[in-house]
């Protein structure tokens, strides 16, 4: 498929992340650090999960329920890890705030905290895209293309890039929702993030059916756009609240 197509697939999966990185994350070094550490946390979670599942591999290719079990256990584990990641972040936030007090600088604004959670989510999403899409993309730079029997309308690399883009979106914005949910104790937000993650994971199982990707991928994008909308709505509400609360002091 040549270099042009290879770059195209890479940009499809990671282009928006690149844009986000360039426009928001790269401005503040702390955000870059957050992104890197959350990428690392996600990769570590994958290593642990693969270690746990190693005795059961390889899974039979024509039965779907072991895969459902795999997705379920992975999502639960990663959501648990997300909570711990948040706890760690709270500790860090206290440290940063007390440091700011000591040197008589303003504390973290609401937008700062949201940017940190955004960077965290982006870290997860980039790790997912690199692991599940980019690592398979090397053959795409060669002359041949590949079509999978069960999703024969589009090349394998294209569908993999599209799915990776959906997951990048989901991971990035669900981290923002989650952090706000844990901080405010909002049960809806706390529950909705694992639900989104799990449903996205389960929707990929639809691709097992012959031509299932025709249904599965649009539904996945539905979930991604719902995540985006919910996040946007939540952020907008929080910003309006805090602006109405008080003038300069935004927590």
């Amino acid at each position, binding site marked *: *498929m040549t270099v042009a197509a290879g770059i*195209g697939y890479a940009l499809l999966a990671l282009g928006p992340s690149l844009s986000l990185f360039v426009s928001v994350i790269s401005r503040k070094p702390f955000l870059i650090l957050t992104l890197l550490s959350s990428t690392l946390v996600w990769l570590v979670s994958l290593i642990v999960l693969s270690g746990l599942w190693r005795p059961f591999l390889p899974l039979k290719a024509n039965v779907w329920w072991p895969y459902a079990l795999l997705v379920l256990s992975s999502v639960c584990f990663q959501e648990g890890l997300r909570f711990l990641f948040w706890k760690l972040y709270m500790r860090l936030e206290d440290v940063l705030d007390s440091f700011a007090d000591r040197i008589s600088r303003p504390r973290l604004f609401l937008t700062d905290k949201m940017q940190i959670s955004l960077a965290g989510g982006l870290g997860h999403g980039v790790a997912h895209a690199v692991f599940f899409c980019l690592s398979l993309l090397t053959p795409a730079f060669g002359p041949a293309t590949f079509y999978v029997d069960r999703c024969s309308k589009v090349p394998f690399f294209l569908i993999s890039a599209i799915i990776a883009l959906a997951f990048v979106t989901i991971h990035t914005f669900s981290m923002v929702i989650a952090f706000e949910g844990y901080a405010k104790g909002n049960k809806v937000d706390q529950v909705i993030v694992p639900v989104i993650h799990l*449903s996205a994971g389960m929707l990929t199982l639809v691709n097992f059916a012959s031509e299932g990707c025709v249904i599965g991928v649009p539904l996945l994008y539905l979930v991604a756009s719902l995540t985006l909308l919910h996040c946007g709505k939540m952020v907008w509400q929080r910003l309006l609240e805090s602006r109405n609360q008080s003038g300069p002091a935004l927590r």
Partner: protein
Amino acid sequence: MATGLPPLLAIAFLISTLLPLPISLAGEIASIESVPDLQKLMYVAVDGYPCVRLLNLSGEIGCSNPGLSKVVAPIIKLKDLKDVAEPHTVLVTADEMEDFFTRVSNDVSFASKIGGVLVESGSSFQQKLKGLSPDKMFPQAEFSPYKNADYKWNPTASSIMWKAYNFPVYLLSESGISAVQEFLSKKEMKHKTFTSHVAEFNMVMETTKAGTHNSEVCLQEGSCLPLGGYSVWSSLPPINVSSSNNRKPIVLTVASMDSASFFRDKSFGADSPISGLVALLGAVDALSRVEGFSNLKKQLVFLVLTGETWGYLGSRRFLHELDRHSDAVAGLSDTLIETVLEIGSVGKGLSGGTNTFFAHKTRVSSTTNMTLDALKIAQDSLASKNIKILSADTTNPGIPPSSLMAFMKKNPQTSAVVLEDFDTKFVNKFYHSHLDDLSNINSSSVVAAASVVARTLYTLASDSNDASNSALGSIHVNASFVEELLACLLSCEPGLACNLVKYYISPTNTCPGNYAGVISGEPSSKPYLGYVSDVSRFLWNFLAEKTSVQEGNTTSVCSKGSCSKTEEVCIKAESNKEGTCVVSTTRYVPAYSTRLKYNDGAWTILPQNTSDSMGMVDPVWTESNWNTIGVQVYTVQHSAYDNAVLVAGITVTTLAYIGIMVAKSFITKALKQD
């Protein structure tokens, strides 16, 4: 709104978990567990046999990639090749092959449409095909000792293997055919508009790279090697080389071990000439069980030549060495050779329950009459076996293409007979083609020929006209041995991995490629065994064991191929086994053109010498070197599609960037801060 969304998501989740239940998983998928697995599925390697570039003094023949890079061309069936703009990979079936290549040589515009050729020659075509012979109508006519070079020994021949083609040609094996057909069947279903199935040929020949287009230049540049190999001769009983007197006259029996076809690695040559070789070995096996050979009046010598297809390299070099009394032929001399009997194609003699063979003689003389009489005696002693030996038709211009032509050219007074299964023209309709395999011959014909030859040789060696029935009647050819040997030399299962061959050597290949190949390294009578082909090594070990005499009861072992006594040779010493020392006179004789000389690691062509009449017409065949040869098939997308993907990626990135900028401005406006 805030309360509406979570229930919506909950419903979506529920639906998604319920959806997989009624969906049945369609079919088996090849599980891809790593990126190399993915690459193997994308690039399907196709198994087969190439046609390679061969050169002679005036030019080249055979096939090759036209340039230095791989050839990538879309696959199309021959019948669909009408008006195409660019070169394609053409799928040709075996029955279309001869017409196709003839047309390519004659029609330049047709040839320009060919990027590469894949030949399908499955077993289904073999029934349809009446004959296929890519050789000439009179093979190696330039070496014939008689003037009539227009006589058609092989009338259905097409001569396609002697032409040069500027594209790669690849014969698909059975697994290759199924791989390609499976691959193409996916095409019919979808994406005709923006994908195409291509074959990629990696058959770059070094002579193309080096720009050397004839033997002389390519040998100088080192981009090719001369064709040749190692012939083997053995004497029964062993000759005492040190005592030069009391030498008996020699009855020389000749067969060849090399064949050729359009495709280098698929040339079993079952009828021509391997049936003759197996008949010789069957006769040797039978004679080895006869007692008292040292009391007979004459000496038997068995000679198996290689390189005969490429200008009678084996026989010319053997005769040359005889003239020079070299080490390779110590114990022999051309004055001692009284009679020569060659065993040609003997695999198709069976018809209507009788095995009929024809004896072609070089000239009328008392010696040839003696041979014909011996053949008759042998035939009569085998009366129950329905074997008939007939003299060849006197209207034939002379002997058929055989090693005896080289003997005759060297010495027109040679008295020799060649035994064949045909009279006025070849009965082998697949002469020198990839279809001359085990199914083309009859093992009982080979057994019959072996029986006749064994008894003829005994009669000639004992030089008695009376058929001493007891001794003659005790000579029996082991039919199961002959059949086992045919399966070893003419098939890939078991091929050279059969027990018979593995008893003597450890073969490097399982599939016997009876193509002579190139001669590597310095030619000598004691060559480095790594450069000697499997079949030559097998013959050497086999003949050495069968013609050996046991001295006493003790057999000494040898390692590293050397025995203490000079008349002993070390046999069965491969694969780290300890060999056995036996008393035998068995030697390798290099087979290469008399026009070539090996000097300091390089080959040079000697100038023409009028005393070497055969060297004057010798084309001096060489084979180009190459790096790797392979064919793979894969699907490519049209470049428009690739560019569309790139544009989509850039668009998505840019749109995301714009979206983020818009969101940022919204948020800053909402805050009036940051």
